[in-house]
């Protein structure tokens, strides 16, 4: 789930800003126009579907059209068109219409109100629909993962562990997040080799590396204003590894005093030490985040950057030659942490949803079945250099990408010790957290102020009865 929000900050923000800026500011007026559409009563999907069979497990009507709206961001939509072709081949007479969209919420809002949403949506990017808003209008996708893929294997057995968690709300699998993302700290293997540095496994080692980097006139970290919360992600990941599941549950369930747990505090204090020592490049709160990332990947002014595995694709054009981008898991506080160092924060992004009121919801599910088949997943990995949630689609050479290889290696090392959390995005806390973290990374606040601020935000949501909570276990 965390990543559902990270696209908000990571992906081509300028484009987002542009599109947003062109929209009429009085959004209330737009909203009202959208509302005037009368809701057509659509026939329940069941009545329009054909009998289900092994070849057509969801009973997609013969010769029907599937209307897929795909977020057109860093991944493009070609991979979805590829899957669409597969559906057309498998279901004779079917047509799959793949249309791109950049502002999902704005573009699809009238269709949701009008009762004719698309059959399948890639709900991603800066303008994605808050999943809590439409949760009750979505199909349960459990039957998709229970079905067999185009190679005849049950889909759920072909997936990496834990990848369905971000899309599960209560007992409903409302979204299938397609792209596997691994979170950690990223570095240049060649630079580290050149200086004989090793990747720090604890925060103490991190301090030492900071001193070494300083000698080379480099910073340990750098950050950009829209991505300050990447450091929060790193902190939470590290704290969960240190304190185990109880930390994750406390945070995810917005428990009282969750930010004051010893594991969380230890990590924040370690970070504060690094900031106060001047190992973080100053000025991040005024730097656009991709510019900041280029300070790491191109200028090599900073040597580590906490991020998700999309970073390679995002910085493709701004990465120094021979950089050898490699990822490592978040550090722990002590060497006897509750979870081993290899434990990994990994989740899936690009949430695919199927609205219940869609004309051809069965077709939407069929589309997802094609996407989760080996051919489509391999095609994605090969062209985008990112892994999908489908296992064994990346060869040992990672199609020539060191980042992709390290991602696979980290996943293998972690085994089933993979975790994630969702509260930041589910309750839409990122914007408020960004403010606190920019100030903290700037060295203008301390652990106490940061803790107090985050706790206030958390308490406010917990005590607001109008916000529906999701119990995480």
């Amino acid at each position, binding site marked *: 789930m965390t990543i559902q929000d990270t696209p908000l900050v990571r992906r081509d923000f300028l484009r987002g*800003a542009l599109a947003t800026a062109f929209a009429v500011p009085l959004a*209330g007026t737009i909203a009202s126009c959208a509302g005037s559409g009368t809701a057509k009563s659509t026939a329940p999907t069941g009545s329009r579907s054909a009998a289900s069979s092994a070849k057509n497990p969801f009973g997609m009507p013969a010769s029907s059209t599937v209307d897929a709206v795909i977020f057109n961001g860093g991944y493009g939509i070609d991979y979805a068109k590829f899957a669409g072709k597969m559906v057309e081949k498998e279901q004779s007479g079917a047509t799959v219409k793949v249309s791109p969209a950049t502002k999902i919420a704005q573009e699809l809002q009238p269709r949701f109100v009008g009762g004719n949403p698309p059959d399948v949506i890639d709900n991603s990017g800066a303008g994605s629909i808050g999943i809590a808003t439409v949760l009750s209008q979505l199909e349960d996708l459990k039957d998709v993962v229970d079905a067999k893929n185009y190679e005849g294997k049950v889909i759920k057995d072909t997936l990496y562990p834990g990848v369905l968690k971000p899309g599960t709300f209560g007992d409903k699998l409302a979204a299938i997040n397609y792209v596997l993302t691994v979170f950690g700290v990223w570095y240049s293997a060649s630079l580290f080799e050149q200086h004989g540095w090793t990747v720090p496994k604890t925060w103490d080692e991190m301090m030492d590396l900071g001193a070494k980097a300083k000698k080379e006139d480099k910073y340990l970290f750098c950050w950009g204003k829209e991505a300050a919360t990447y450091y929060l992600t790193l902190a939470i990941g590290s704290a969960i590894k240190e304190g185990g599941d109880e930390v994750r549950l406390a945070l995810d369930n917005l428990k009282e005093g969750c930010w004051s747990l010893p594991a969380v505090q230890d990590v924040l204090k370690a970070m504060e030490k690094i900031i106060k020592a001047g190992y973080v490049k*100053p000025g991040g709160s005024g730097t656009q985040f991709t510019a900041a990332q280029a300070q790491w990947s191109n200028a090599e002014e900073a040597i580590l950057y906490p991020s998700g595995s999309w970073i390679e694709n995002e910085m493709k054009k701004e990465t120094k030659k021979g950089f050898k981008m490699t990822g490592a898991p978040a550090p722990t506080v002590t060497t006897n942490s509750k979870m081993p160092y290899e434990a990994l924060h990994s989740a899936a992004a690009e949430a695919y949803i199927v609205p219940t009121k869609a004309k051809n919801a069965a077709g939407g599910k069929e589309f997802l079945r094609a996407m989760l088949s080996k051919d489509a997943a391999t095609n994605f990995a090969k062209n985008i250099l990112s892994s999908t949630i489908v296992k064994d689609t990346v060869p040992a050479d990672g199609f020539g990408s060191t980042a992709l290889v390290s991602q696979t290696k980290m996943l293998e090392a972690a085994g089933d010790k993979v975790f994630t959390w969702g509260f930041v995005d589910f309750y839409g806390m990122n914007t408020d957290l960004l403010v606190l973290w920019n100030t903290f990374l700037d060295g203008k606040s301390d652990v106490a102020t940061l803790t107090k601020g985050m706790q206030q935000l958390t308490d406010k949501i917990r005590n607001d009865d109008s916000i529906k909570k999701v119990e995480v276990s």
Partner: protein
Amino acid sequence: MTALGTGVAPGSTKPARTRRRPGKKLTFDKVSFFLVFLGVPVVFYLAFVVSPFVQAVYYSLTDWSGFSPEMNFVGISNYRTLLGDGTFMKSVGNSITLVIVLPVVTIVLSLVLASFVTVGGSSHGRIKGLRNSSFYRVISFFPYVVPAIIIGIMWQQIYDPSAGLLNGVLTRLGFQQFSSFPWLGDERTAMVATMFVIVWGFVGFYMVLFVAGIKGIPAELYEAARIDGAGRFRTMTRITIPMIRDNIQTAYIYMGILSLDAFVYMVAMNPGGGPNNSTLVMAQQLFSTAFTQGKFGLACAMGVVLAAITLTFAGLVFVVNWLTGGHEDITE
């Protein structure tokens, strides 16, 4: 009236009536003219301006999520939520700061510039502007030609702490304290830096507007003032400003409405609302409430508040202008 009324009373009503009668006859020509030039615009206005507005007001009283046809009437609870919402109140505060500062600064600056290029030149001979004034006029109009979003993106780069032009120049000049200084990331400077960009973008436009106004003032007035010994400042306050009062009022309202919006600039330069929300404006908060949080009802309430503030502002400008003597029309 009384002098006239006595003599012509009986006859005066009759010709008046006959004169008015043809006006009452509704010929096809007239009806079709009314329909096309009055009816159609009114219908358009009602359909596309008034009705959405009324609808937005209605939605502000519901808990509409924006993604379903269902909604419940919740009365004024959205407005109550807004009053207790610290972030929203902060954005209201920021918008009001903008509306107080921006129009004054922009208009004073552009008025001074307009005076310079039209009447501020040599105090001998013909009334004229500074030398090369047409060159300055073109230069200062440049920023207005650039779209707002580009201005925002451009200045974001200029303000960049490490690679930006501003810090580059400042550190080169020896101000080492500005190396890596985050202009848009520091609570003390973010708002001022943003305001500067907006002023920069609009000074040229308002200058041209005022130049046109000043050109409409008869040169004799300036000549007479000069003969009476009035200096440039006195000429400006006593002649220029009173003579183009209406232009200034219009400019003030336009600039004020723009400052209440300021959406594009804010989103381009500080999409997240700036350090400690110091540059967050109402329009931004409204947008994220509607589209990312899925609370269209609440967002509509914000829209209504914004509209109310805008109308209040326009009303205030009229009142102030009237109170300061705007109703004594000196041009006639």
